[in-house]
Structures are given as C-alpha cells and as structure tokens.
C-alpha cells in the first residue's frame, strides 16, 4: 500500500460569509479576497506541511494544478515540486497530479519541466496527466472544450515521444507542429516516469489507462461512498479487458482526520471540513459543463462528472446539463441516493456520515481505510490531511498521527502485489548530497 500525502494548497482565509456573498470559488472568484502578503504565509506553511509529511514517512507527496481557484493555489504545481525536490526527504516520491497537458502549446514545456523535476529529484517523479477540470481548462485558460480531449491525446503522444525518442524529431500533429523536438534535459527514469491519470467515470479513460498501462486515479472530494460505483466500473472494465487485478493500477483520494479519540477528532476537524465543503466547493454551475467537455459516449453512459455534481450542489441553480441524458437524471440540488448518500453535505456530522472525511482514533481510521481500500480495490491511497482552513500545527499533528499510528496498521495491505507504477530513483549513493554545504559540486 502506498500512502501519498496530497495537498490542494487552499487559500485559508475566505470570509465566513463567502457562500452568501460570492457566487463561485473558481474562475471569477473575487480578486479582492486575495491578500498576497497572507498568501506568502500560506504558501510557506503549505510547503512546510509537505516537507513534514515527507519527513515522517509518507511514500509520496502530491501536488496538482488549478487556476483562478480559491481552494487551490497551484497554477504551477511544478514550481512547488521543484522546491520539494530539493528540500523534501530524498526517499519520498514526488507526484504531480498533474499538468493539464492540453493547455500547453507546445507541450514541449511539460516534457521539459517534468524531465527537470525527475533530474533534480534523482528519478522520484510520478507524472500525472489529467485532462483538467472545465473550470481550469475551458474557462480560466480558455481552451476550446470541443478540442480539449483531442489536444490532450496529442499532447500525451508528444510528451512521451519527447521523453523516449533519442533522436531529434519533427512533430506534425493536428494542433502542434514542431520542426525540432529534442528536450534537454531527459528524465532519469527509463523509459519515462510512471504516468498516473486522474479521471472521472469515463469508460474511455479506463480503457486508455489499461491499454497504456497507466494508473487510473479517482480523485473525488466526496470520499469512498461516492467512489464505489466508479471503482466498480473500473475493475469491471479491467476484467473485460483481461487485465490483472493488481490494486496498484488504481488510486483514490480520501480526506482523513486522525486524533487520539473520535470525540477529539470531531472537535479538531469540524471547522476545516466545513470550511472546505461550504466555501471551497462553492462552484458556479455556469462553469461546470462547457459543451463538448463530456464526450458523447460518456453522455450516453449517463455518467455524471463529479464537478458538475459539486456545482449542482453548491448553489441556487444547476449546471447546464439539461441536454445530457445521464446527467439530467442524476444529481440535483437536494438529491439523496437510495443508500442515503448525498453530495451536498456541508455540516460536519453529515460530512462524516457520508464519508467525505474519515475521522477517528488511529485504530478507527485504519479500520475504515482497510475496509474501503479492499472494497474499492486500490493501492495508491492519496490522503488529504490538510484541508480547508486547517492550520499548519493541526495539519502536522494529523500527518504525524497518521504516519506513526495509522500507516503501520495498514502495512500488510496488498503486500502480495508488486507496484509497477512507482518511481525507480537513482540510488541514494549516486545522488547529490544537496543539503551539505561543504559537498563538492555535483557536476564535478
């Protein structure tokens, strides 16, 4: 089992009345709410938290990309990872989940920066290739939703070729034409860093991950209950395709709050959880479903994007999904599933009850995680141990308790399986001793 410490890097000081006075945390969030001098502290706290997570033994630290977003301060996750590549525990993998590769023209930039990160870190990079949310890609970055997936596919081909082709080559794509592609540096890991693909519940994405031998990551803010159907669909598809059931093919995200007791956990984590689900997930339905973002195949399958659901749940309106048959019939503002699960909980009891956040003593948390890890069958567990407006002190306590008291209880999980999708770094002996001021220059 791999335990990956994931950070969204939220802006932690959205006002109490944010939901009442602001329509969206994303795309057109009010810039007057942003205080750069406070953000200076937030960035440094968040980086401290990630370094701490690496120090206490998490297998990886993870960053991701968001734009014009009040709960994600990482327009450039590669900048964050560059800092961590130098300062974090050298035994910790570095996961960027990822770069929205359709946004970069030419995609050379992504191939280069990820190769840089792999070199700086000595081969510890996990390369995430998300399509990206509609808010980030189509609205904040203006990408055409009708071309987004075509551009994504082409950028993927471009980057992989840039990493693996030893010769200078020309790339003659639909959207990218380059006479000379010859990135410098090249990644340490051969043929390239492991590739993880965050996605929704699209059958095409599952098939593609299987075909390419990539990890499929379901990053839901709604916890394991929301992920059940998606992960069942993923494994059913793997079975149909004749793939093995190696749990490391899949990753899932879970919010967790650990304390000495359940009562203490409730006391500690109620505020940051409510901050996240009340303020951070207030996304305008206007930005949830640009036409073309959801493929026709997925529309037919009736699979609802979790982002549309988040938006639907977040305000006095629903996303413009009325043209989509599956979505139309899925979530509305107050829908509650037959099993009682809902995606619109904003108060702590309901947040916990619905499984968005798992809380409790170390034993309680480990027991719950063990159950969902097996039920959903995934080997790459991404943990949000800082969420909402959680302070650095609380986040570090949560991180430490998890690393020292929860992680060991799960050490046997999936031990019979090999993780083929984990970085293969240079040995420590061969790596630069970057923290030693008296060390000779690495290049000597």
């Amino acid at each position, binding site marked *: 089992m791999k335990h990956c410490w994931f950070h969204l890097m939220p802006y932690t000081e959205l006002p109490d009345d944010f939901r009442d006075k602001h329509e969206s945390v994303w795309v057109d969030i009010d810039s007057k709410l942003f205080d750069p001098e406070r953000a200076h502290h937030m960035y440094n706290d968040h980086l401290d938290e990630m370094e701490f997570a690496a120090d206490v033994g998490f297998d990886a630290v993870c960053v991701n990309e968001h734009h014009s977003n009040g709960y994600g301060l990482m327009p450039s996750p590669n900048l964050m990872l560059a800092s961590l590549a130098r300062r974090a525990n050298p035994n910790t993998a570095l996961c960027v989940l990822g770069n929205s590769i359709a946004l970069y023209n030419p995609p050379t930039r992504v191939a280069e920066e990820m190769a840089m990160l792999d070199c700086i870190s000595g081969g510890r990079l996990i390369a995430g290739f998300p399509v990206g949310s509609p808010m980030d890609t189509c609205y904040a970055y*203006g990408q*055409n939703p*009708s071309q987004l997936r075509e551009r994504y596919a082409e950028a993927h081909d471009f980057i992989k070729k840039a990493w693996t082709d030893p010769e200078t080559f020309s790339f003659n794509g639909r959207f990218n034409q380059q006479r000379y592609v010859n990135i410098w540096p090249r990644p340490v890991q051969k043929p390239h860093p492991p590739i993880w693909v965050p996605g929704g519940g699209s059958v095409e994405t599952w098939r593609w991950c299987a075909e390419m031998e990539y990890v499929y990551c379901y990053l839901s803010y709604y916890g394991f209950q929301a992920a059940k159907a998606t992960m069942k669909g993923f494994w059913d598809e793997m079975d149909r395709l004749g793939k093995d059931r190696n749990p490391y093919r899949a990753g899932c995200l879970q919010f967790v709050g650990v304390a000495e007791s359940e009562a203490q956990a409730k006391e500690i984590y109620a505020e940051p959880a409510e901050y996240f689900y009340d303020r951070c997930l207030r996304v305008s339905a206007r930005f949830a479903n*640009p036409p073309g973002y959801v493929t026709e195949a997925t529309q*037919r399958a009736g699979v609802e994007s979790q982002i549309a659901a988040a938006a639907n749940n977040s305000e006095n309106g629903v996303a413009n999904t009325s043209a989509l048959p599956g979505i139309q019939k899925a979530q509305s503002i107050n829908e509650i599933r037959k099993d009682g699960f809902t995606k619109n909980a904003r108060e702590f009891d309901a947040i916990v009850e619905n499984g968005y956040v798992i809380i409790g003593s170390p034993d309680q948390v480990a027991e719950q995680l063990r159950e969902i890890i097996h039920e959903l069958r995934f080997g790459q567990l991404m943990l949000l141990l800082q969420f909402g407006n959680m302070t650095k002190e609380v986040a570090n306590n949560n991180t430490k308790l998890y690393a020292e008291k929860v992680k060991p209880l799960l050490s046997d999980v999936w031990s019979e399986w090999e993780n083929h999708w984990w970085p293969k770094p240079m040995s420590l002996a061969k790596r630069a001793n970057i923290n030693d001021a008296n060390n000779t220059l690495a290049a000597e």
Partner: protein
Amino acid sequence: MTEPIENYIDVSGYKCRVWSKGKGDRIGFLPGFGGLPKWIPFLDILAEDYEVVVPSIPGFPGGLGHNNYDNHLEWLLAIHDLLQESKLLDKTTIIGSGPGASLCADIAALWPSLIKKLCLISPWGIYSDNEPMADPWAQRAHEVSELMCDNPELWNNLKSEPAGKNSVEWPIEQSRALEASARIFWPLGNTGLEKRLRRVCCPVLLLRGVNDKVIPKSYMKTFSKNISGQTTTKEINQAGHLAELDQPDIVAKEIMSFVSL
C-alpha cells in the same frame, strides 16, 4: 405547419440534412445558436413566397462532422461546400442567425460574387472589450432560454423532445449543437470577422431583437460601418437574440421586403 422535404448531402464525408419547402426564388437560412431540431414558423412564412432551403451546419441538429474542423479556414470551406451542395451559392439571398449569420458573412467576404443579398440576424463573429458579447456557454440550464428568447418558452419548445423520439439521442443532439458552436466561436464569439467585412459588397439587412441579451446593439453599427455593400439596420420589438423565434411574422416581413427591393 407542414413538414419540409428532407434530403442529406455530403460535406467532407459527413451527412448534413437539408430541409426545403415552398416554391419561388430560392432563399437560404443558416440557423442560430442551438440549430434547428424542428422546423419553425418563421420558415413557413418565408416558404409561402420562396423556396426556403435550410442546410444544417456540421454538428448542429441534422448535421455531423463538427469534430473534423480544427480552425476557421476549415470551417469556412465546409460552410462553402454545404451552401454550394445546397444550391445556395448561385447569386442567392442567404439569411443567417447568430453563429449562422457570422458564417454567412464570412462566405460573402471570401466569395463576394456568389451571394446576391445577405440578411444577418444578430450576427456573431466580432467582439468589443467595452461591450462584451454574452457568454452563451457559461449559463445555468434555466438561463439559456432567457438569454436566447424574449419569450423563453419558445426556446424551450424548440428544444423539447417530440413524442416518440429516441430519448438518448435527442438531448445528445442538442448538446452537440452547443459544442459545434463552441468549436467555431469559443471563447468570445470573435472570429476576426471585423477585418473581413470590407469584402462584403452585396446589400445587407441587419436585424436585431431590441431585447437581445447576447449581441449588444453597438455590434450592428460595427457591421454596418465595415461592410462595403449597402446596409439597412432594423430593430425588432419584443424580440431577443433569436428574433426569428420571437417574432417570426415581423422578421419574415422585413426580410421579404428587403429581398424584393
């Protein structure tokens, strides 16, 4: 209201529906945002005096192949072929609405000798920083109808599924139409048409609903100022962006008056 004759033509290897109805001089219509999943009263009125020919833009209801086109040149060639195959590029009058109007204007700019007269209803294709065009792709479901029509029920009726239609494919077709318009006009509706308008030398009737919430009034002045041919601008009362839906009689009357001059 009787049904039109339905034919299909090939555009770049994809089928596109062409509706026609009526007798007389041929007149073409390229539809507005969302396309035409149904024949509309406005076309029936025109069909009383003309042979009305309505080709489907690729991706709009009745047309396929929008994902085949990656840039504006490819789109304009496809629209040229669509109109040519529909026999609308033989000194014919063409009406366009919204995105369809923008494409008509571009065809007239690129091939000025092929168009007799143009009628542009709230045309897209230009953009003003001072008065931005509304974003039709960033709306809640209930807001789209209010954005498109002065009487939102007219949009809802146009988009509602007829009894007996396949319940899966109908809404996908409506969604595809929005995607096709986005593929051409994302993100601002601006295709740089303003620079090409000087090449439009035929007479042009510019129509806009007084209550159009998508295209600002000033855009009509920009069209009028830049088009080389003679232009006439008319505003339609109690009409929104799709004035042909809100006021079919008045819009048809203005067009017929313009065509007969």
